[in-house]
């Protein structure tokens, strides 16, 4: 997080992105997004539009997409708002990428439950494949970030790659996911434990076991 800095404005950046404009499909979407908000409150659309712009940039680059300065200016101009306010939003929320990024953004959760369930090994596995925190690999495939809790504690440890979560990981399962992604496949998101469908208990319930079949009053046992 601390390494997050905005990509500096440069003539090359201007040359590449200076004439950014919505694709035909996104222009329709952008119009629809702006129309969701009342007249005079169009600025509220800044977050969905930035997301849309990031995805369009990603599609053009075949990566996860990011927000170059001229693209933020384009969004600001469309919403008639000061550019600094757009930059504030884009730099505040970490899901906006403000520097170029790889095709797969591997976000490893390192918060307590994941850490207890082995996120250190997951991180080590990522590093073993050549990834480095805050960097993109030379082939442009992988960008690695350590993030805080993603809310999948019941199936820790987890990583989020692009828009999908991969849970119940071990280094081997992670390798399988990453290999599949590298081959261009789409691995099944969610838990990677073959014994689980979602976050139901593995094997027999260990807690509140007496509640499985019928209602049970535990109060006498406290």
């Amino acid at each position, binding site marked *: *997080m*601390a390494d*997050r800095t*905005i990509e500096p*404005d440069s003539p090359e950046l201007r040359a590449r992105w200076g004439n950014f404009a919505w694709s035909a499909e996104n222009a329709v979407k952008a119009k629809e997004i702006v129309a969701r908000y009342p007249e005079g409150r169009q600025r509220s659309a800044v977050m969905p539009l930035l997301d849309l712009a990031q995805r369009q940039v990603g599609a053009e680059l075949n990566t996860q997409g990011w927000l170059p*300065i001229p693209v933020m200016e384009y969004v600001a101009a469309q919403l008639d708002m*000061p*550019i*600094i*306010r757009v*930059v*504030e939003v884009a*730099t*505040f929320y970490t899901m906006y990428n403000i520097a170029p990024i790889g095709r797969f953004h591997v976000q490893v959760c390192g918060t307590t439950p994941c850490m207890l369930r082995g996120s250190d090994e997951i991180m080590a596995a990522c590093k073993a494949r050549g990834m480095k925190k805050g960097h993109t690999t030379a082939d442009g495939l992988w960008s690695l970030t350590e993030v805080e809790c993603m809310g999948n504690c019941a199936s820790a440890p987890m990583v989020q790659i692009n828009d999908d979560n991969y849970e119940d990981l071990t280094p081997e399962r992670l390798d399988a996911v990453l290999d599949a992604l590298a081959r261009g496949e789409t691995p099944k998101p969610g838990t990677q434990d073959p014994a689980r469908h979602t976050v139901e208990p593995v094997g027999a319930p260990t807690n509140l076991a007496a509640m499985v079949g019928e209602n049970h009053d535990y109060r006498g046992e406290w």
Partner: protein
Amino acid sequence: MPKLTVDGVELEVPQGATVLQACELAGKEIPRFCYHERLSIAGNCRMCLVEVKPGPPKPQASCALPAAEGQEIRTDSEMVRKAREGVMEFLLINHPLDCPICDQGGECDLQDQSVAYGRGGSRYHENKRAVTEKYMGPLIKTVMTRCIHCTRCVRFSEEIAGVDEIGALYRGENMQITTYLEHAARHEMSANVIDLCPVGALTSRPYAFEARPWELKKTLGIDVSDACGANIRIDSRGREVLRVLPRVNDDVNEEWISDKARYMVDGLVKRRLDRPYLRRDGKLVPVSWNEAFAAIAALNPGSSIAAAAGDMADCETMFAAKTLLAALGSSLLEGRQTGMDYDTSNLAAVNFNSTFAGIESADAVLIVGSHVRWEAPLVNVRLRKAAKRGAKVFLIGPEWETTFGGEFLGEDLSLLGNLPAHVAEALKGAARPAIIVGGAGLGRGGLEAALALAGTFKLVRDLEDGSRWNGFNVLHMAAARMGGLMLGFAQKGGIADLVAAKPKVLLSLGADEVDYARFAGSMIVYLGHHGDKGAHAADVILPAAAYTEKAGTYVNTEGRVQWSDKAVFAPGDAREDWTILRALADAFGVSVGFDSFEELRGAMISQVPALGGEGLADYGSELPPGGGSAAGTIAYPIKDFYMTNPIARASATMQRCSAELLHGEHFAEAAE
């Protein structure tokens, strides 16, 4: 009117007050960093915590908490003391504590409040955060590691200045205040963020490492860079003025001043006229005072003498010149240097009648020929407030970047006689309609046509609340203008009357905008302080005092009489203007009837009693009917905001601002 108790004292506070304001009314000091009376409430510094019952059993931020009936507020309890100590300790965790090398030292809110409310020691042993410097232009120096993220600067530029350019990037510990892409702050009030900054993050670049606040002599003065008459404090050390700061005056400048008022003072030590000069064989040569006076007296002009007042002349100087000319039998006085000849028989017709505070409440404003941002930045702030309250603003003149929206109707004065229907409708339907005529709108019949509109739309009226509203305003650009008009520095035909009279001697009271080629046959005696256009054309130069070097009376464009004090002495042989005119009277062998400044001021007040007290002069509220038609394309007289007077033109800071901000020159940052 909620009734509540503060530290056991019961009091009643106005509806809508906050707990912080209630505590202030009770005479309690509440420490704060982010809260500022003139900005919106942010509530992010947490320094103003107090204990409030009823409410959650924890301290609450008083700045954002509305005062309510029956509240029991404590500012002196153990909980409050510990809360303040805690907040202060957190603020100081990432603050560098480099007070010995910080320019804010001695006038720093953080320094003062940590002494008063802090723990006196730190328990923090980890590394502190460091933030890269941000470039904010030639006026604002940044040391962003010191920033405590109060966001006053962000709120100022958004709410008051109306130019959204400062923002807070990133989040949490990584939050950084910056301008967009580190461009220079581009508006006329930008340096006010230096005063607002409660720590040393934003400090004054030209004043960097010049002095400590306790070394400075503080003199109360009046700004002369425009006709607003902003109240300033002149900070000087020895014979040098080091900086100018605003004083609070809600009627005039609230607590802002323009960048020009603040930073043109370094021009006071450059290009100064510090000894008399006399033109011999076409060249100006230094002479003694006696030689200079002898040369003027030898001409023996009798009544063939005229006086032109410059834009920064004080009333005493103008009155002394008037008395001298009267003693010689002349009344050829003029202050409108560029040749304006609007009618001045009724001063209410050339005055900013609604007052600055009043224009805020206007609900429809028509601006005729005024680039308000450059001609009167402080009025621009008021107009922005009016527009935020819903006022409709229309402008006649070439387009400029307003900070309050507004609709540009066109560039021709003839629009005055032919207003578009929706504009007429808006002015007619308004409860408090106003017209502002700027310098470019006064000539070519513009004033008369605007006065006719004032009659049509009944700009002078009694409001429902019983008060009187006069929405007819003239916005001047010269600090000397209203005082000069009150003293009769206006001929019917303007300066052309002086040219036509072919005076033997033309007394120029710091008049730098006059076309002296038209006075080729006259001896031009220049009383002024800077070697600018007027001095180049002069035959005799009598070195005089600048506005910081003499006491004086100034009348701003509202007709507000204000007194300024003397901060420093004029350099070299230069003397205060009135003493020069008094000595000139001796040289001519006439009597002017005053021998001291008090006698001069007394004589002036007995002739123009309105100058005898600070406050608005009464010009009456009856406007002349006006009429006639106006035509002609408007061109604003100010081409460069930072270069409008000889002091600013001599100032290195203003020159750099002009080059960088207006002409796009690029300056490399010096390596530090």
